[in-house]
């Protein structure tokens, strides 16, 4: 098993946190993992991305150009990364910012449009759309058990941020359940 995913969005959408958390969960599930943040003179409000690789064998390259999955939080990232997705690959897309029509140009990929920001807002935590999208990615891919994400979340939050566990857990759950509830219609080919 080898699962490569690129997570991308605006700076401030929690892209690096979500990627870090997925890697942490993978590690706790006993997998080999690499987490590679994009690195350079980034601008506030510019795009931000990171690459996570999960594998049951040694991971050679942490750099991936043709990922098996994407987690896309904004329009510029959609345009930049969807063309790189392998045929048959899965793209979890933030429907709150990206209209579903965008997928038309890319046949042969699986799109999962999730109203990530709306789900987070309904839970009262509008800044946590990243967790809703991650919940959907974990549900749709089955790459790590959701419990490992939650135990990973506990490990990642420093003592002074412990109070953020519950909000993150709730929104993650919403994203996860969104896929379970819409399993027949959620993924468009």
């Amino acid at each position: 098993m080898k699962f490569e995913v690129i997570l991308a969005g605006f700076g401030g959408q929690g892209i690096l946190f979500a990627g870090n958390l997925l890697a942490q969960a993978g590690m706790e599930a006993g997998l080999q993992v690499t987490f590679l943040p994009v690195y350079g003179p980034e601008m506030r409000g510019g795009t931000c991305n990171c690459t996570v690789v999960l594998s049951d064998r040694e991971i050679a390259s942490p750099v991936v150009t043709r990922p098996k999955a994407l987690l896309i939080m904004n329009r510029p990232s959609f345009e930049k990364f969807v063309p790189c997705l392998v045929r048959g690959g899965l793209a979890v897309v933030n429907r709150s910012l990206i209209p579903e029509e965008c997928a038309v140009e890319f046949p042969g990929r699986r799109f999962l449009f999730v109203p990530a920001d709306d789900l987070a807002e309904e839970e009262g935590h509008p800044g946590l759309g990243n967790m809703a999208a991650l919940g959907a990615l974990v549900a749709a891919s089955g790459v790590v058990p959701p419990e490992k994400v939650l135990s990973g979340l506990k490990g990642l939050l420093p003592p002074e941020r412990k109070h953020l566990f519950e909000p993150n857990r709730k929104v993650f759950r919403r994203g996860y359940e969104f896929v379970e509830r819409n399993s027949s219609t959620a993924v468009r080919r």
Partner: protein
Amino acid sequence: MKPILVKGSEAIALGALAAGCRCYFGYPITPQNEIPELLARELPKRGGVFLQAESELAAANMLLGAASTGVRAMTSSSSPGISLMAEAFSYMAALELPAVVVNVARGGPGLGGIEASQGDYFQATKGAGHGDYHFLVLSPASIQEAYELTARAFDLAEKYRQPVMILTDALLGQMKEPLILRKIKPRKYPKDWALTGAKGRPGRVLRSLFLGPGELRSRNELLQKKYRAMRREVRVESYLLEGAELVVSAFGSLARIVKEAVNLAREKGYPVGFLRPITLFPFPEREFRKLAEAGVRFLVVELNCGQMVEDVRLSICGSTEVRSLPFPPSDLPAPEDIYREIKRCLRSPRR
């Protein structure tokens, strides 16, 4: 033991702590600031010293001073900062001071950029400052190895009374992987040279100025003898060498991308192997020579304009073909880019 998920820079700092490093002197520069960040927090807790100096020059000379007392000490910087420190490095080599220097390299020359680069290979392996001297240079390719090699660097520095450099880059420095904090047992070496106050013993002198007839010559011969003795520390990672007609070589973090390309090529049945120098100085000449004698060709992949390829060519003295695949600093190459070059090499007739 449970792994933790950390950046390469953090693994280096943790390796230094595990090896009993007690002093850090440095000046901030991207992309290595996680090293001082972690040590600023942890060293004082262990009775150590963390000091952010007013400049790289000051930091490197503070390191020289601390090392001359025999304490385990280090600095870290990135390419332009390492250039500024080079004068002190030459003095440390002359004084035979054990110390660890970390270069999380970025693109150059000049201020260059902040992306991953291997453009400091020459600077690291041929000696950054003046005079006939070398660092012992180690280059990790994974977060676990960054931890282990940094810890080992402190032992080697004392074993040979010799500055040791960890040469890595932004790719390894910034990425995260699981790290097992294996317990390190620092080795003990006699320090009958250290300046610790001459109470109850004759005074000791550390000097690098030799004006007497023949003095400087014997000083240099002594250093060269030491550099030859360091050859027993040579380490490589070799992979899929059996039946290989082409061996692809790379060091540091780039070697990970190259290894992926070698895997791709092997899956398609191409007779390709992989050889990664872990010690960059001393260079694994014998390992390359043995393969050359067996008739393999080489492809040397680097994140610079072609530097290590010169050492490969020197090692094998023209006995087989050595091709260079340089990637000057900008975007990182993909495994597929290297895979394509592997195919091209194997299809082309021998030169």
